[in-house]
């Protein structure tokens, strides 16, 4: 697929993201920056299973929610630093990913999509009724840091660079995956599953591996969110709109491409901030109408997203060169 030399593009994007907080140092722009990074992390994580493997999850908030709840839960229950909850969230997400994937990946892709949304709704409603995890009220993190290990900072700048580091790790893993046998398996499955199977691709195993990898990073994204905000409730952890955001960002930029989710987040996050500012509190409704409209338009006209559109319209030398 994309052969376009990662060192160059990665260096440029990395440099821009590194100096962004120095150029736009105001709290407002920094907030947009961290929101962008978080959205890019979760959309890139979704992209592994939804984009590369072509198994469209519409309930990825389930992993995000586990990741978001566990750090604050270990803090509230045992007084542990929230950091300790991250591996627990990852562990729970892996188990749930396997539980969803194992039965549905044997069937057609529709079953997987339905199962993800049903499980996400199930967990969301259940969380809202369970007092141990704060029920409908939610959980809170440490108000004042007891030490650096609480990862509770006053400003947003430390979060910005932590998020950037996680995003970099995720993108490096995705880029490595693209070139390896695993990445080719995923694309083969996405293009024609039966053919891939008959040529000896371990379809079920590969799909589950992709889902687990995706779930791990989605869970980490959720943990980062709750570490930063220090608060979580069922809607902000497991709400369907969390899943919607991952799907729309990845699909808008280009599902199944390395930089698609970054491009999607770079467009959507400022747009979302703008609509919320212009229309005030009532704007969130309009934002979701817009989201729905964008998703329908992508599905109908541009399933490859903006990067694919670019490849068809841009001058030849600016296109991402293609191996195939």
């Amino acid at each position, binding site marked *: 697929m994309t052969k376009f030399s990662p060192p160059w593009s990665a260096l440029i994007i990395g440099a821009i993201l590194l100096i962004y907080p120095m150029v736009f140092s105001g709290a407002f722009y920094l907030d947009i920056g961290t929101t962008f990074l978080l959205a890019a992390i979760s959309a890139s994580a979704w992209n592994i299973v939804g984009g590369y493997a072509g198994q469209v999850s*519409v309930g990825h908030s389930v992993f995000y929610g586990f990741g978001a709840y566990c750090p604050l839960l270990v803090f509230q229950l045992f007084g542990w630093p929230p950091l300790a909850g991250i591996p627990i969230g990852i562990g729970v997400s892996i188990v749930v990913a396997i539980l969803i994937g194992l039965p549905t990946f044997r069937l057609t*892709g*529709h079953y997987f999509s339905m199962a993800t949304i049903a499980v996400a709704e199930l967990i969301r409603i259940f969380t809202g009724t369970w007092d141990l995890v704060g029920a409908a009220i939610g959980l809170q993190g440490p108000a004042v840091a007891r030490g650096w290990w609480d990862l509770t900072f006053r400003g947003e700048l430390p979060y910005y660079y932590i998020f950037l580091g996680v995003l970099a790790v995720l993108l490096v893993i995705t880029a490595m995956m693209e070139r390896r046998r695993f990445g080719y398996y995923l694309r083969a499955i996405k293009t024609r599953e039966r053919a891939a199977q008959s040529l000896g691709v371990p379809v079920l195993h590969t799909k589950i591996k992709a889902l687990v990898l995706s779930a791990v990073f989605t869970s980490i994204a959720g943990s980062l969110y709750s570490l930063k905000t220090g608060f979580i409730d069922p809607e902000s952890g497991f709400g369907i709109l969390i899943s919607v955001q991952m799907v729309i960002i990845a699909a808008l930029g280009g599902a199944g491409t390395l930089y698609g989710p970054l491009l999607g987040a770079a467009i959507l996050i400022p747009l979302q901030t703008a609509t919320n500012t212009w229309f005030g509190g009532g704007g969130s409704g309009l934002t979701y109408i817009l989201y729905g409209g964008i998703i329908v338009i992508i599905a*109908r006209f541009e399933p490859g997203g903006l990067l694919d559109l670019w490849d068809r319209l841009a001058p030849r030398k600016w296109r991402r060169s293609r191996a195939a």
Partner: protein
Amino acid sequence: MLLLQVIVGGLLLGAIYALFSSGLTLIWGMMNFINFAHGEFVMLGMYAALLVVVYIGGGPAAFGFGAAMALFILGVVIYAGLIKHVMRGPMLSQILSTFGLALLLRYTAFWIFSANFVSLPQTSLSGTLNIGGILLPVAQLVAGILAIAFTIGLHLLLTRTTVGSKLLAVSEDRNAAMLMGIRPDRMQALAWGLSGCAAGIAGALLATAYPWSPSVGETFGLTAFVVVALGGFGSVPGALYAGLIIGLIQAVSAYWFGPIYKDIVVYGLFVALLWLRPQGLMGKA
């Protein structure tokens, strides 16, 4: 006695689940396509009924017919404008097209009708019957019985008429059907119309008996998935039995564990079904 009352109420609601789920299963069975916006179709059917009552007036027959027509047209339009173009495309397009549509319809409804719960003004169906100690609101009783009748009607339409045979022919072999002079496009548009129609009538029936807000679409959509998974994908009789069973389970679990747990039990059942019998209770492997 109270339990009996709960059971009857659950079955009557389950009959309506059966009706709108049969619309979802029709599309699934015919085109291997899952409509994530089906619950929103039901929700729009409820508002269509309300609009007819408020602006045109007339009895249950009028708003029932209005909702059915409105959703039939919506189904055909969505097929022609969206589904036709994505159904052969990548899985991403297939899933995202109706998923995005669901969001679009849901939040547009929030925007137009606000998030407040509404209900139909008093109709000729108000009042309560007392049958052997069981109190039955007339509206619920009529809605439940009509829902069963329409579901059976849809089944008969699909199995006993020429149009039904044509629909079946297209679903079995599109090319062979074309060679027999059937236009697959028209038949599939008709299927989407019928699916919308089932959702519209179900919505109108629900509106007579239960208050609602735009958010009900999400719940009904998931309920329809569970009903279809239980009854077997593509089977209208399966949807009828499964709808009644789900209505019953929901009502009884709300009675035993508390209303908030009714959806947890039903969605949990869905996950269990995917593990144990993905082809559904009545479906063939």
